[in-house]
């Protein structure tokens, strides 16, 4: 996807600097305070100047809490709230995000973490997709283009994180921001519509203990970059060399 059409960067830089001068509140030289993540203009394509990522602090993630899962269901219209998939069993139903409970065998220490698409830098799902429906957007978000997905489910087999689901039944009453349909594979989209609008993903917003940090891993001044630079964090199965955009602390 690196040969994607990129916008004129010099113009963007100029605009960014202009906006910085006009609206940015400077709290120290080189440090700017903005209310939220800056939204990209709607008519501009995503660039690889940004890589969206998440950092989950499993020390803060409470056992038994599934606020992130509930928020994801509500935002994207999957799960029991959609009222669909009534003929599918629990293993067949869609699952964009799930809570995994961990217990250390020797010490008995138990904690939990949210598990979803890890938005790999080298996504195996995209490697095996025969139609190009699985792809990584320039800003690192891994998506399924359901317009061209043929439902072969190779990606589901390739994903080491068991992050993807297949829709077995006809659905109705989908959310306008999250089209879903029978015969296609789906997974966490990192709430791509919200991210494009300058918002944070629903799971991040909903976490009562602020255990999930969302931001641009390529921006050295973003909170997530500073945190991963300061504290130890790891990817799940780092041995696979996929460099996921979702990292975990405390595991």
């Amino acid at each position, binding site marked *: 996807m690196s040969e994607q059409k990129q916008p004129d960067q010099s113009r963007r830089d100029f605009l960014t600097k202009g906006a910085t001068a006009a609206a940015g509140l400077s709290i120290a030289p080189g440090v700017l305070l903005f209310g939220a993540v800056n939204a990209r203009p709607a*008519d501009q394509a995503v660039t690889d100047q940004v890589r969206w990522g998440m950092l989950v602090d499993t020390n803060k993630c409470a056992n038994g809490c599934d606020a992130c899962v509930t928020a994801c269901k509500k935002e994207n219209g999957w799960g029991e709230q959609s009222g669909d998939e009534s003929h599918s069993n629990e293993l067949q139903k869609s699952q964009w995000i799930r809570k995994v409970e961990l217990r250390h065998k020797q010490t008995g220490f138990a904690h939990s973490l949210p598990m979803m698409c890890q938005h790999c830098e080298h996504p195996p799902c995209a490697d095996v997709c025969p139609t190009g429906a699985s792809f990584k*957007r320039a800003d690192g978000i891994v998506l399924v283009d359901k317009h061209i997905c043929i439902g072969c489910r190779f990606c589901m087999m390739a994903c080491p994180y068991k992050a993807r689901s297949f829709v077995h039944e006809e659905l109705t*009453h*989908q959310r306008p921001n999250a089209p879903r349909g029978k015969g*296609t594979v789906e997974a966490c989209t990192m709430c791509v*519509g919200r991210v*494009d609008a300058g918002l944070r993903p629903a799971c991040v917003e909903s976490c009562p203990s602020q255990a999930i940090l969302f931001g641009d891993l390529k921006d050295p001044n973003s909170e997530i970059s500073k945190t991963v630079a300061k504290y130890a964090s790891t990817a799940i199965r780092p041995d696979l060399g996929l460099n996921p955009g979702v990292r975990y602390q405390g595991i």
Partner: protein
Amino acid sequence: MAMNGLARLLRLAAGAALVLTLSAPASAVPLPEIPEAKGEHCVEDPAVMRKKHMDYLKHQRDETMHQGIRTTKYSLKQCLECHAPVKESGQAVAQEESGHFCKNCHVYAGVKIDCFECHATRPEGNANFHPMVTPGGVSLNKARDDSGALLNRVAAAHSEQAGANQ
């Protein structure tokens, strides 16, 4: 015997004439009913839209999906914003109900429409955010005629909740 035969023939002829009158309207298929849209004009000339809307949608779909370009001019969401008629309940008409802009015309043209196998068939109306026109608010408004019944329902709901909390 001859009279009987004649009567039968007449009855048959009358029946045939009736069938002919019933089955011969002026035009073969009734034109689709096009619901009124919001706003003054469409994003392009209606004649162009009729011919090319699928191309605009497909082009937009690829740009949005792969490049994150979310301009609204040719987006399916924006089509529905203007073209999905809003019912009395404050919700827009869904595809499975009668009076859906896209479906009405596609049924007439005999062209299968794939968009709505995944996409929402109506916008999530802004009206739903307003407390007075939410489904709950609408039912309350309907109950206003009999304020005693409304009070009873509120009281019942409260006592039910109190019971559940205990």
